[in-house]
C-alpha cells in the first residue's frame, strides 16, 4: 500500500451486480488528490452526455482523499459526485464524520457506482472484501433504524453506514446521503441519485486496514496533531467548536447579513432565540447540568475542533433524540430566519426530520421559506397547502411542511422537487420569489453584502454554494487579521467593502482554487484554509507531504483545485449549460433589503455583469460562453476534455 491511500478503486455495476477493482498508478492520485477531482475523472470519461440524473446511466462517485484517515484534525471527509436531479447540472457534496476514515481503512479510495439494481441492495465493504446484499428489509426505514438493524445484522457496532432515508427512496430532489444518522453529503440531491439506483446504503469496516494504515512521516503527523490541539483555544475556530457554527448568527445580524424572510431582509429580531450560544445554554445535551462541553459536542475522526452539535429535547411538542445531532448555522438560518421562525426547538426538530429521512437542510428550509413568501403574496393558498397557513413565523407550519416533504405527502411532494421546479409547476409568478442559482437554493450568506460571493453563487457549477471560496470580509479594508496568511497567496491589497474590482475577483478566484483543492484532497474547511481556519494552506501542503511523502507545493495543490473546477465546468458545458445560466436571483437585483444595517441594499446589475466578465477572464475561459478554453484545459493536463467538448 502506498503511503496514505490504498491505490484501489471499486467499480460497482448495480444493473449486472458485477464488482471490479481498479488499481490506478501513483500519477493518477497526484493528478487529482482524490475527492471531487477524482470523481470528475470518472463522470467525464464514463458517463454519457445528457444522462437522466435519476436513470441508470448516471454515475454516483464516492471518494476520499490521499490524506483521509491520518490521525490529525480535519481529514475525515468524503465527496459524492453525480449529475444532480435538483439542478440538471453537476452535483457535488462533502460529508465528515467517521465514515470517510473507515472507508479508507476498509481498503478503497473510491466507489464508482453505475446502473440500477433490480431490487434494494446495500454495498458491504469489509477489510478489502466486498459484496452487494439485499436491503429489502431496510427500505422505507429511517436512518437510525437502519443503523441499528445493520449493527445487529453485521455483528459489529463499529461499522460506518452512509445511507439514504425514505426521502432518498422517493427521490426528493435534494435528498442527502447521511452517515452516523447526523452527517450529510447534503447538497445537490446525491441521496436521490442513490435512491434511483435502489442503493440503500454503503457500509464500511476496516479493522485490519486501520492497523495497516501508514503515513510517510508519522512523527510529523503526531506533531501536527499536537500543535493543532495546542493552538485551538486561541484560534478563530475555538468558538465554532464550543458554540457551533450557529455562533456566527449574531455577527451576521449586526451587519445586516442574516438572510431573513426568504432573503427580503438581512436582520431577524428573534435571532438570539436561535443562535449558537442559546443552543449551548438550553438544548445541547448536558446543558441542564452544565456538562454540555462533555456531552453536547461531537466530532469527526481524529479531529480536535469538535464542532458538531448534540441536541436533546425531552419535553414539549418538539422532542429531539441526540442520535440525530443538532443544527448548524445553515440549518438554524433556513428553518429559522429564512422562515421567520424564532423557535429553536422547532428548528432542531426540523433538523432531526431531515437527518431521519435524509434531506438537505438548506434546500429544504429555503424551499419552505420561498413557499411562505408565495403564500404571503397570495400566489399559493390553503387550497394548495391542504389548509396549512404557510406564513412567515408559523413554526408549526414550517415543521409540518418539513414532515410532508420528507414523507412525500400532499403539497410536500411538490416542494420536494425544489423551489425552482415547484415554481415552474405552479406558475402564477411564483418564480419572482426564488433565491436560486443554477436551480439550487442559496445558503445563508448574502450577495447583497458579500459581492464576490455573489459571483461564486452565480457561476459555481453545482449551484449557489458558500463553501467554494473565501468570503469577502477577509479581504476588505479595515480588516487585517489575516494579512500574513493572505500574503502567502500574493493577496496583499485589501479592497473596499462590497467592491467587485479585478483585485477582489482575483481574491475570489484564487481562494476558489484552494477550496476546490480542499474538496479534492478532502479536508474540512474549518480546519484548513486561506484565512480564519485552524491550519493555513502551508500546513495543508505539509499534511499532504507528511502523509504521502510527496514533495508537493502550494501552487501544485491550487492547480488541482483549478483542474477540478474546470472539469466541473466542462461537465456542464457538455450538458449545454453555459454563461446563460450563471445568474443570481432576480429579486437580489430588483428588491432592496429592508431593515437593519443592510437596509436599502441590492446587487448592482452592471457591476455584477462586469465582474462576471472579469471572473471568466481570470479563469481564462471564453467570456461570451463561460466555457473553459482549449488552451486552459491543455495547461491543466485536460486536453482530453477539450477533445470531448470539440473545442
Amino acid at each position, binding site marked *: 500500500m502506498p503511503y496514505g491511500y490504498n491505490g484501489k478503486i471499486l467499480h460497482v455495476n448495480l444493473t449486472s451486480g458485477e464488482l471490479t477493482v481498479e488499481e490506478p498508478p501513483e500519477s493518477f492520485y497526484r493528478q487529482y488528490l482524490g475527492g471531487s477531482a477524482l470523481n470528475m475523472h470518472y463522470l467525464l470519461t464514463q458517463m454519457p452526455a445528457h444522462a437522466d440524473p435519476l436513470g441508470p446511466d448516471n454515475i454516483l462517485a464516492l471518494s476520499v482523499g490521499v490524506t483521509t484517515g491520518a490521525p490529525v484534525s480535519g481529514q475525515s471527509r468524503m465527496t459524492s459526485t453525480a449529475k444532480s436531479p435538483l439542478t440538471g447540472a453537476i452535483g457535488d457534496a462533502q460529508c465528515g464524520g467517521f465514515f470517510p476514515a473507515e472507508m479508507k481503512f476498509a481498503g478503497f479510495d473510491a466507489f464508482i457506482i453505475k446502473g440500477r439494481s433490480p431490487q434494494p441492495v446495500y454495498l458491504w465493504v469489509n477489510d478489502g472484501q466486498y459484496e452487494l446484499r439485499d436491503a429489502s428489509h431496510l427500505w422505507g426505514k429511517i436512518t437510525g433504524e437502519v443503523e441499528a438493524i445493520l449493527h445487529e445484522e453485521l455483528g459489529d457496532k463499529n461499522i460506518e453506514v452512509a445511507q439514504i432515508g425514505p426521502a432518498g427512496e422517493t427521490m426528493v430532489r435534494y435528498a442527502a446521503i447521511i452517515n452516523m444518522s447526523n452527517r450529510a453529503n447534503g447538497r445537490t440531491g446525491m441521496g436521490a441519485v442513490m435512491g434511483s439506483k435502489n442503493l440503500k446504503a454503503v457500509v464500511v469496516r476496516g479493522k485490519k486496514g486501520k492497523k495497516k494504515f501508514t503515513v510517510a512521516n508519522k512523527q510529523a503527523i503526531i506533531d501536527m496533531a499536537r500543535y493543532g490541539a495546542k493552538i485551538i483555544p486561541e484560534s478563530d475556530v475555538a*468558538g465554532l467548536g*464550543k458554540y457551533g457554527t450557529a455562533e456566527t448568527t449574531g455577527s451576521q445580524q*449586526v451587519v*445586516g447579513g442574516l438572510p431573513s424572510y426568504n432573503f427580503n431582509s438581512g436582520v431577524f429580531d428573534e435571532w438570539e432565540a436561535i*443562535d449558537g450560544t442559546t443552543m449551548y445554554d438550553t438544548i445541547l445535551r448536558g446543558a441542564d447540568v452544565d456538562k454540555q462541553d462533555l456531552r453536547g459536542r461531537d466530532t469527526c475522526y481524529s479531529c480536535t475542533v469538535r464542532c458538531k452539535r448534540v441536541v436533546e429535547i425531552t419535553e414539549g411538542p418538539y422532542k429531539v433524540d441526540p442520535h440525530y445531532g443538532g443544527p448548524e448555522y445553515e440549518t438554524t438560518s433556513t428553518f429559522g430566519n429564512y422562515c421567520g421562525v424564532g423557535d429553536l426547538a422547532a428548528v432542531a426538530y426540523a433538523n432531526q426530520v431531515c437527518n431521519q429521512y435524509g434531506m438537505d437542510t438548506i434546500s429544504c428550509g429555503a424551499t419552505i421559506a420561498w413557499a411562505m413568501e408565495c403564500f404571503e403574496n397570495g400566489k399559493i393558498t390553503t387550497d394548495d397547502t391542504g389548509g396549512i397557513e404557510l406564513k412567515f413565523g408559523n413554526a408549526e407550519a414550517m415543521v409540518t411542511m418539513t414532515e410532508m416533504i420528507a414523507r412525500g405527502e400532499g403539497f410536500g411532494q411538490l416542494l420536494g422537487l425544489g423551489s425552482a421546479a415547484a415554481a415552474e409547476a405552479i406558475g402564477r409568478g411564483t418564480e419572482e420569489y426564488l433565491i436560486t442559482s443554477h436551480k439550487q437554493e442559496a445558503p445563508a450568506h448574502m450577495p447583497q453584502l458579500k459581492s464576490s460571493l455573489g459571483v461564486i453563487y452565480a457561476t459555481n457549477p453545482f449551484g449557489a454554494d458558500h463553501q467554494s471560496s*473565501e468570503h469577502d470580509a477577509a*479581504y476588505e479594508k479595515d*480588516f487585517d487579521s489575516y494579512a500574513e496568511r493572505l500574503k502567502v497567496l500574493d493577496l496583499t491589497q485589501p479592497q473596499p467593502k462590497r467592491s467587485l474590482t479585478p483585485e477582489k475577483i482575483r481574491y475570489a478566484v484564487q481562494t476558489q482554487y484552494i477550496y476546490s483543492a480542499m474538496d479534492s484532497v478532502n479536508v474540512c474547511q474549518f480546519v484548513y484554509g486561506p484565512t480564519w*481556519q485552524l491550519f493555513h494552506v502551508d500546513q495543508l501542503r505539509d499534511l499532504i507531504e507528511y502523509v504521502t511523502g510527496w514533495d508537493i507545493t502550494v501552487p501544485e495543490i491550487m492547480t488541482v483545485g483549478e483542474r477540478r473546477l474546470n472539469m466541473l465546468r466542462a461537465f456542464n458545458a457538455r450538458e449545454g449549460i453555459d454563461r446563460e445560466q450563471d445568474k443570481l436571483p432576480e429579486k437580489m437585483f430588483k428588491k432592496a433589503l429592508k431593515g437593519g444595517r443592510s437596509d436599502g441594499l441590492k446587487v448592482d446589475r452592471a457591476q455584477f455583469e462586469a465582474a462576471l466578465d472579469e471572473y471568466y477572464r481570470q479563469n481564462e475561459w471564453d467570456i461570451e460562453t463561460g466555457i473553459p478554453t482549449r488552451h486552459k484545459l491543455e495547461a491543466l493536463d485536460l486536453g482530453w476534455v477539450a477533445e470531448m467538448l470539440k473545442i
Partner: protein
Amino acid sequence: MKINVTLHGILRDYLPRPAKGKTTLTLPDGARVAEVVQQLNITRSVSAAVNGEEAELDRVLQDDDQLQLFQLIGGG
C-alpha cells in the same frame, strides 16, 4: 456611566462562566467601545453593536447603552 455589555459566542469566555456573557461596567463619560474591549482583556478581533445597531470601535458610548460584542471572522 453604566454600560450593559453582552459578549456573544467565544467572547463569553472572557467573563466567568456563570455570567453567560453579561456584565455591567462603570466607565467615565466619553468612553468608547474600544475601551470596553480593552477593559475586558479581549484579544480577538471584534465587531460591535450599540443598542442593536452596528457600531465602530471608536463609537462614544452613552449612559445605559446596550453594547454587544461579537468575534469578527472574515469568512463564512
